[in-house]
């Protein structure tokens, strides 16, 4: 698997004396949905944050598209198409839903100080396309009627949806999702996974942490099981389900 999209090589991260992530190696391929499961505190979110550049790994290397990215700041990692949606939505609460979406678009011409003043025609043209794109996504996540309300006025589930929608706005090459189905009604949760599957067949790769295994295992093509900072089991969903160790890890009993 030389040309894996994301390559994590023996990455460790510890806080004080506790290893949150302990020598984890894994590959994410182009396209497809990859799952990451494990009990609470097993290091899933820390692994995500390390990939995103929010934590620098203590050991090990991370490659994205064969490029070493562990030393890059988060905004540069994002510009390369590695995008994240937080478990607890971190929206820009005083901005409208629409503006939350537009902030996330990658490669905006008007993001630079001088461009925003002197190349107005260029970014205004780009902006029109982005608005249409944002409206498409908002329609899909059923937030279109709220396009102009401040994000602070959304309900808990809607915030979660906007967090995911915002990440999609970046047209990611690899999307890290931390519990996308949590707090969303089952029908829409399933619809989101269907949409994600459609996106993954179009070449977007997904790496998803999810506790609602029944949904995840239906769509994932490969699943990693994490326990105490290490990858304990890896395999296709069916193989994981059939593995007795999995129940021991997840349920904490034989």
């Amino acid at each position, binding site marked *: 698997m030389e040309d894996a999209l994301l390559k994590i090589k023996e990455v460790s991260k510890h806080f004080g004396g506790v290893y949150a992530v302990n020598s984890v190696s894994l590959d994410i391929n182009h396209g497809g949905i990859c799952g990451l499961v494990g009990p609470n505190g097993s290091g899933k979110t820390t692994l995500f944050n390390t990939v995103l550049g929010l934590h620098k790994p203590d050991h090990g290397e991370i490659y994205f598209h064969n490029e070493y990215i562990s030393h890059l700041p988060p905004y540069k990692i994002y510009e390369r198409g590695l995008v994240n949606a937080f478990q607890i939505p971190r929206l820009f609460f005083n901005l409208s839903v629409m503006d939350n979406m537009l902030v996330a678009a990658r490669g905006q011409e008007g*993001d630079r100080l001088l461009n925003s003043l002197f190349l107005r025609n260029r970014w205004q043209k780009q902006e029109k396309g982005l608005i249409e794109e944002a409206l498409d996504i908002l329609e899909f996540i059923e937030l279109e009627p709220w396009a*102009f309300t401040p994000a602070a006025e959304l309900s808990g589930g809607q915030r979660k949806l906007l967090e995911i929608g915002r990440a999609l706005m970046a047209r990611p090459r690899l999307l890290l999702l931390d519990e996308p189905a949590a707090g969303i009604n089952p029908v829409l949760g399933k619809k989101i996974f269907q949409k994600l599957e459609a996106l993954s067949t179009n070449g977007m790769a997904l790496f998803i942490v999810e506790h609602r295994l029944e949904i995840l295992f239906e769509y994932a093509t490969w699943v990693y099981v994490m326990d105490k900072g290490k990858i304990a089991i890896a395999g296709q969903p069916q193989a994981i389900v059939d593995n007795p160790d999995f129940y021991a890890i997840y349920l904490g009993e034989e």
Partner: protein
Amino acid sequence: MDPLLYVLDLIVFIGIFGIVSLSLNLEFGFAGLANFGKVAFFLIGAYTYALLSQTGIPFYFCLIASALVSAVFGLLISLPALRLRADYLAIAILAFGEILRLIVKSEDWLAGGDWGVTVARAISIEGASHRVDALINIGLVYFCLLVFFVVIQLLANSPYGRAMRAIREDELAAEVMGKDRTKFKAQALMMGSAMAGVAGALYVQYLHCVLPGMFMPMITFTVWIMVLVGGPGNNWGVLLGAALVQIIERGTNILKDYIRFLPVDPTLLERILSDLQYIAFGILIIIVLLWRPQGLLKESKIRSKVQRLAYDGRRAAKNKGS
């Protein structure tokens, strides 16, 4: 004194402090930087102008130099300061302003130390009346104000301004959404400082002199009142705030001139009136915070017209289709 001159004088002051409050609005209202050292950059611009204009350089070069020198200091202070958390940043810049004031106060060779130096008016016409003089200054100040207003308004309504506001809302989320927060903040501090520098230059040339006593920390807080009362994130709002605060501040000063004729002990009255300013500020802040905590004018929206248009266009198309 000529009553009309009072009004003209007030208009000049509103313009000068309008520029400073616009600059704080850029830093705090849009980028979320708690700059409690506004007066430092006001001072840098003022002294740059005062020293340069003595050499006989034309005033517009001096004004541009004031902007540039202040911007450089803004950038320099941003290097260590932006690593600090918001509250420590506020303390660090506040201290920076006081240090600068004490330096110009004790270094006599620089600009007269505590006694200050006189500064020539930018544009002076031989034999012109005070009124004409004030009118010329109004023209100069409001020209600068207009330029800055347009620039900030354009920025605030662009993707750049949106990114800035996102950083204000949640730095970390903005950073993982591809916004280089250090760069945005440093640029905000640089532009804000440049504007404050120009305002400082306009201030000292209008008052004909520069002395350290003109740059007490109270200036910073007055500008904060303007922004908070007017509405952070709204350029019209902060101008309104600047006008309100200046009317109170100048108004009480003018009152002092007239009250002398009343048959009451003048020293006592003057003392009461000096405090009246601060009492009025206090009441203003309390009223605004109670009834309109977001300021008199709400934060301005970003390019909402274009967004609405696209939204309504889709709505119409859908209705036709169904």
